[in-house]
């Protein structure tokens, strides 16, 4: 029968495969139990202090670069990481505001420059925000430009700030 020799050679091949697998398993077990020693023996290379320092700095720079590329990414006018609108002084706003609170506290609010100033004053008076120095004006410029009140609703408030208050002189009853 022509099948006979084929069946034997198949059996032989299977046996070889089993021995091979057995060998691999033994080597792997050996590596797992003694790997550390082998590794230490083969990979150990003596670095000078200068070489180590240079290596560390290279890696640090690489890490920061990749992180900042991602960090500064702007899509459709929005800073992806914070959700803030791209614009002048965005970097100052991110560094001054978002280290303490979510950028959402900005993006969900709308106020005039004076209104944003009041919020900064409140944070300074009650929330431990430090003096912002020369950054304050820049932060307010950014907020007033990008998060100004929008005219919503069916009727706006009277523009009380624009009203010129005057004393009405009335005759008679006083």
């Amino acid at each position, binding site marked *: 029968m022509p099948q006979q020799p084929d069946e034997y050679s198949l059996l032989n091949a299977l046996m070889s495969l089993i021995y091979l697998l057995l060998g691999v398993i033994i080597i792997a077990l050996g590596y797992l139990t003694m790997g550390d020693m082998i590794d230490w023996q083969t990979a150990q290379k003596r670095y000078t202090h200068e070489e180590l320092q240079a290596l560390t700095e290279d890696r640090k720079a690489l890490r920061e670069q990749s992180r900042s590329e991602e960090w500064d990414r702007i899509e459709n006018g929005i800073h992806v990481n914070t959700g803030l609108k791209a614009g002048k002084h965005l970097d100052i706003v991110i560094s001054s505001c978002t280290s303490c609170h979510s950028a959402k506290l900005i993006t969900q609010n709308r106020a005039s420059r004076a209104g944003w100033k009041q919020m900064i004053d409140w944070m300074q008076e009650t929330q431990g925000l430090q003096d912002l120095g020369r950054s304050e004006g820049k932060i307010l410029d950014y907020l007033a430009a990008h998060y100004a009140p929008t*005219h*919503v*609703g*069916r*009727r*706006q408030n*009277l523009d*009380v700030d624009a*009203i*010129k*208050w*005057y*004393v*009405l002189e*009335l005759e008679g*009853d*006083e």
Partner: protein
Amino acid sequence: MSKRRKFLKQSALYTTATIMGARVVFAENLPKGMKYIGLSEDIPGKHPDMIVLNDRPINMETPAHLLNDALTPNDRFFVRNNGLPPSKVDPATWQLEISGESAKQTKNYSLEDLKTKFEQVSYQITLECGGNGRKEYNPPAKGNQWGTGAVGCAKWTGVRLRDVLQDVGVKSNAVYIGYYGADIHLSGDPNKDPISRGVPISKAMEAESMIAWAMNDEDIPLLNGYPLRLVFGGYPASCSGKWLEKIVIRDKVHDGQKMTGSSYRVPCHPVAPGAKVPDENMCIIEEMPVKSLITYPMTGATIKLSQRLPIQGHAWTSADQIKRVEYSIDFGSSWKACQISSATNRFAWQQFKAEIIFPERGYYEVWARATDSDGRTQPMILPGWNPKGYLNNACHRIAIKVS
């Protein structure tokens, strides 16, 4: 008066020569009775505190507190021009042509003809721009951002339009009248009309529909249509053609400039704010809604708690008359009645007044709302949004502080 304006006025005293030396638009055309106010930023014949929204063409509105007179003085009457007023007006040679497919003949009248051939009438008629109050709409509508002051009421003298139309002869198929004025298109192209609107024939035939040559017993100011204009109460003021040279009696709705497209039209059916409305779904505005204005005191008054605050104003409607005006000092929670005067005629605005006692110190808003004989009342918030921002009759508000 603003500090800036005061400064300009004072410096103007020292620089009269410069101002007089500057080119003053229309100065050489000033008709009799119009005074030139010696400031380059002022518009000839108009009060210096008028708010100029546009200077080409001239569009200016009146601050509410300058509208306190029962009849609006000529120098305080708002201006809504679409083109440039005619540069030369000679009343002696002025001609009015009446023609059109539904006119039985074409006929011309001089001012003298009009004054001698027909009964002269005077009516107090309120004119209000269809876009008055546009400023408040949201989403905003393009165009002149009128606040509250594109309205005034004057005593107009002239003849009834129907008398003149009947003198010419009106065919039974007449549908509309359209006007043409002598104003010049902004491009300067003499073949283009800046505006040519009109009214349905039934409106033209009403007793108060006029061809007028006098405003408060004076010549009509050049900016308001000297020497001759139409006056239709209760309709958008754009129907009341100025510098009137020609009236056409049409057998269909007049299709002149700013009659078609979306001009002076609102959605035929109410739409959501910001909706896009195709032209074929925009309908011509006819009647103007009920409205009122507080003209005294000027917003921003501070008074003492011991004082009563008198308020005054006007209310107007396209219906027969104003039935009621009320005020509120608690943001519309409660309303008290004002005293109202009766109108001298239909479309004259009516005066209201009241004396307000405030319960405690603080910030108040005085709101006024009118109700007309058709039972229509002004809304406290904005009425239905429309793409061009017409017909805002939300109640007027002034701010008061009681100390």
